């Protein structure tokens, strides 16, 4: 069972505060989505979590131990970065052996099997791989690492539709076979929405939501219909975004129960927002 704890975590780059006072506790073995717009602080958070960056303020602990200069703890975490961190002249096969040195639980046979299934040529040099195959290569290292915490930063970068599906399925199969913490940072929300159990939404360096996906979706609903009637409905209610098309209006209401009787009497439609729509509404800087 893993426990990740971030306390009052801040990171400043010069004048920019990339993360602001983040408090976050992740417990148990789950697939978690780390969602945020570009520049929201997702990668900074992952870099801090794996001690690739030093926090300006605050603490990071995994299973109760600080991560900074703590190889024992970091050995339980595999971080698939968007950047390429392997020497380019290294061959894929050698990268497997190299990873096995740092991760004693590395499953070479499974890694090779994945390479076959994804048609990744293990005799190729890392620098010769296309963007898509570079992602596949890094994802395979993560899946085979045997680590109890897997962090994926934009894992499907450059992958075609078939390979994206294969990878999502493999992440699920891998998680079911060996339950672990899987954190997927991505902006492709629609694609990952259904494989997630929990989401963390970061906006401008702050964690604005952290809860089970189902609970988040149940906390909001969409109301649409004639604009003046929608306005009447949302009076005194907390709402996020609005889409307007002449006299038609659609609004996402957050919190509180649906007043079906009122909606019906006003001739309004009530719907369930998709995770992506809700995400956009929550992180839209115009609100």
């Amino acid at each position, binding site marked *: 069972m893993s426990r990740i704890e971030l306390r009052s975590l801040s990171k400043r780059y010069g004048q920019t505060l990339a993360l602001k006072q983040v408090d976050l506790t992740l417990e148990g073995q789950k697939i978690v989505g780390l969602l945020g717009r570009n520049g929201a602080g997702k990668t900074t958070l992952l870099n801090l979590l794996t001690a690739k960056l030093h926090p300006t303020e605050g603490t990071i602990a995994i299973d109760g131990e600080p991560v900074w200069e703590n190889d024992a703890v970091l050995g339980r975490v595999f971080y698939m970065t968007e950047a390429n961190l392997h020497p380019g002249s290294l061959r894929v096969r050698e990268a497997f052996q190299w990873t096995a040195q740092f991760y004693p639980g590395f499953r070479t046979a499974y890694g090779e099997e994945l390479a076959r299934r994804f048609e990744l040529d293990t005799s190729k040099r890392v620098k010769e791989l296309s963007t898509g195959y570079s992602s596949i290569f890094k994802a395979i290292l993560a899946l085979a690492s045997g680590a109890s915490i897997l962090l994926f930063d934009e894992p499907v970068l450059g992958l075609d539709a078939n390979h994206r599906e294969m990878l*999502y*399925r493999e992440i*699920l*199969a891998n998680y079911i076979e060996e339950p672990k913490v899987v954190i997927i940072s991505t902006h492709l929300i629609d694609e990952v929405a*259904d494989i997630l*159990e929990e989401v963390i939404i970061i906006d401008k360096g702050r964690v604005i939501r952290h809860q089970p*996906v189902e609970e988040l*979706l149940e906390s909001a609903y969409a109301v649409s219909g004639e604009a003046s009637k929608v306005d009447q409905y949302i009076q005194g209610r907390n709402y996020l975004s609005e889409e307007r098309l002449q006299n038609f209006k659609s609004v996402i209401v957050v919190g509180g129960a649906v007043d079906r009787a009122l909606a019906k009497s006003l001739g309004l439609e009530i719907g*369930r927002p998709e995770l992506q729509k809700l995400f956009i509404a929550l992180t839209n800087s115009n609100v």
Partner: protein
Amino acid sequence: MRLDFDSEQPIYIQLAEAMEDDILKGILAEETQVPSTTELSVVLKINPATARKGVNLLVDEGILYKKRGVGMFVARGAQRQIKKKRRAQFYQSFVVPLLAEAQKLNVSTGEVIEMIERGLPDEQD
């Protein structure tokens, strides 16, 4: 089994309904084993907790039952039970929206009945 990810329904309810549909169609026969939550999760690309929640919904209703160490099976009488439940929902799920649409279009009740009667023989082809 197919899920409509654009639906208004939570995924676990869609999964339960899709399994019910397969039972009604005989794709999942009574007293046969249904796919495991692992298979459902990986094939449908949904979180295993969601798959478990959907399956448990049917276990709670007695449509599926657990054989220890083997897996989930379709209960005897599941088809009949699903039909009974769906019949009870038929008015709300189909007749109410039908009448609402008819009203929007000024289609009279007589015309609606006429259309239903016209549709019936075709259905039996």
